[in-house]
């Protein structure tokens, strides 16, 4: 069989078709949200929400068991969506009101989410093994129903992220100025948080909750090495997200390796490549526009000359 025929076989498999569509959608949407998160220095927010979503999965399982649903995890995805949304609102609330800093609030979510998930799954009569497919993804089990969920949520995230990108940029870039411009900053922060929550649950099937954040953040990390504007970082990161998801998934069609981990490692390999080749790119750019490399920061003391 030639490689072309193999490719054809892969594309004609309904299982692979569904998985590829899910991968493209998730790969495109996750870095869009990730760009805003990185800008706000909340790169680990997706991770925190992923952990909380685990509690939601277990809670959905528990409710499913009580209601006697078959399969028991029918409510796992709705549970994850709800838990992640609540978690996202909670983290913004803590950040806005409390004296707790953003990263401390995230740490609390990490531990609470994992512990809650492990405890609840036990109560639901399951084992930790049941959680593993959510922790590490199981794209090969994507059903048509899952695909609709994924498509709808990914489209919503892309629509909000691109439609409101100017406002989201303004708030992520300079929150104080945005507040002083009459923008509803707290509400907009909640929108970003809710988008992250939805992305986490969308990507849960593809890369798993533990690696969700990687798909949101690593493509942005690669893109910001290569291009110098917010819009281009977002576009390139989204492209990288799609590329690594599709390539990573295709590799697993031939090799029996876990897709989520493959996708993430591909993205990190891209980052390493970009980091190594970047000095060459920047040197060329500096030649075009030479400038004083010293940042012109204000003096700590007011020198007599500066006072004039």
């Amino acid at each position: 069989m030639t490689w072309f025929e193999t490719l054809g076989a892969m594309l004609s498999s309904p299982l692979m078709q569904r998985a590829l569509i899910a991968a493209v959608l998730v790969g495109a949407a996750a870095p869009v949200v990730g760009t805003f998160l990185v800008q706000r220095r909340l790169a680990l927010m997706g991770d925190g929400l992923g952990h909380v979503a685990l509690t939601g999965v277990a809670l959905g399982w528990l409710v499913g068991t009580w209601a006697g649903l078959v399969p028991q995890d029918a409510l796992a995805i709705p549970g994850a969506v709800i838990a992640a949304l609540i978690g996202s609102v909670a983290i913004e609330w803590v950040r806005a009101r409390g004296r707790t800093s953003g990263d401390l609030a995230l740490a609390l979510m990490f531990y609470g989410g994992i512990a809650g998930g492990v405890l609840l799954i036990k109560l639901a009569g399951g084992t930790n093994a049941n959680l593993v497919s959510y922790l590490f993804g199981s794209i090969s089990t994507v059903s048509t129903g899952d695909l609709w969920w994924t498509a709808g949520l990914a489209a919503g995230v892309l629509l909000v992220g691109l439609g409101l990108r100017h406002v989201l940029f303004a708030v992520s870039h300079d929150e104080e100025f945005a507040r002083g411009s009459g923008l509803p900053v707290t509400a907009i922060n909640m929108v970003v948080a809710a988008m992250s929550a939805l992305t986490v649950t969308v990507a849960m099937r593809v890369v798993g909750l533990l690696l969700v954040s990687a798909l949101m953040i690593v493509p942005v990390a690669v893109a910001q090495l290569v291009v110098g504007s917010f819009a281009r970082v977002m576009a390139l990161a989204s492209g990288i997200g799609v590329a690594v998801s599709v390539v990573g998934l295709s590799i697993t069609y031939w090799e029996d390796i876990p897709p989520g981990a493959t996708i993430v490692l591909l993205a990190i390999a891209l980052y390493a490549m970009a980091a190594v080749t970047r000095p060459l790119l920047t040197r060329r750019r500096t030649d075009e526009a030479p400038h004083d490399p010293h940042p012109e920061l204000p003096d700590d003391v007011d020198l007599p000359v500066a006072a004039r």
Partner: protein
Amino acid sequence: MRVSTGAAAAAEPAVLATGVDVTLGGHQILQGVDLRVGRGEVVALLGANGSGKSTLVRALLGIVPRTAGEVHLLGGALGNGVPWERVGYVPQRLPAGGGVPATGLEVVTSGLVHGRTLRPPRDARKRALAALEQVGMARHARRSVLQMSGGQQQRVLIARALVREPDLLVLDEPTSGIDLPTQETFVATVRALHDAGGTVLVILHELGSFAGLIDRAVALRHGRVVYDGPPPRPRGEHAGPEHEHTHPHADPPTPGAGLSMEVLP
């Protein structure tokens, strides 16, 4: 409270604040501050470090919450009533920023979204470039602001305020620790806006290069207005108790132990 009636007493003053109280971190920073800035006036807000000038400006713009008092900007109550498309604000400096680069053009364009619109207008790009041109930064429109010098960043921030073509411009300490060209840009900006009939509220440590432009000065001490009248002479200001030549900006300003007796009830 003294209210200046010197300016062309337009029906609606550009800034009207009455009885503003602000409490931050358990400390009362502002107490019963009244401030009125008429249309077309250039008013300097003076006072020592920790006197509450920055907090007052931030309270006027709704950045920090008030515990009491009313604020009207350009005739509209703070919140949705303010015509935000005509209010420009230049903070002291750009926040350190996250890991994503943003070009000067993108930062200036972000000035075109505000409480009145969540989407920039169609000619946003043209207006942003014109604003950058005004501060001499058009050449750097496509450079990341993180690679710019402090003075260049400051000029991008001025452009972000000017892109709204503001009727009211609020500047937070435009003279502290910046390079000469940027200071000149600030003065030219204020002069141009003043000539066009605009209103300017500027926080200053000393009148310095703005001296000739200031119509009126308001001085704060311990969170209250202690002076409202013609700008003090530069020499008198040098002898004044509020003159201080260090510029640390501890935030929020906590009143010293000895002084707090006068301020806190």
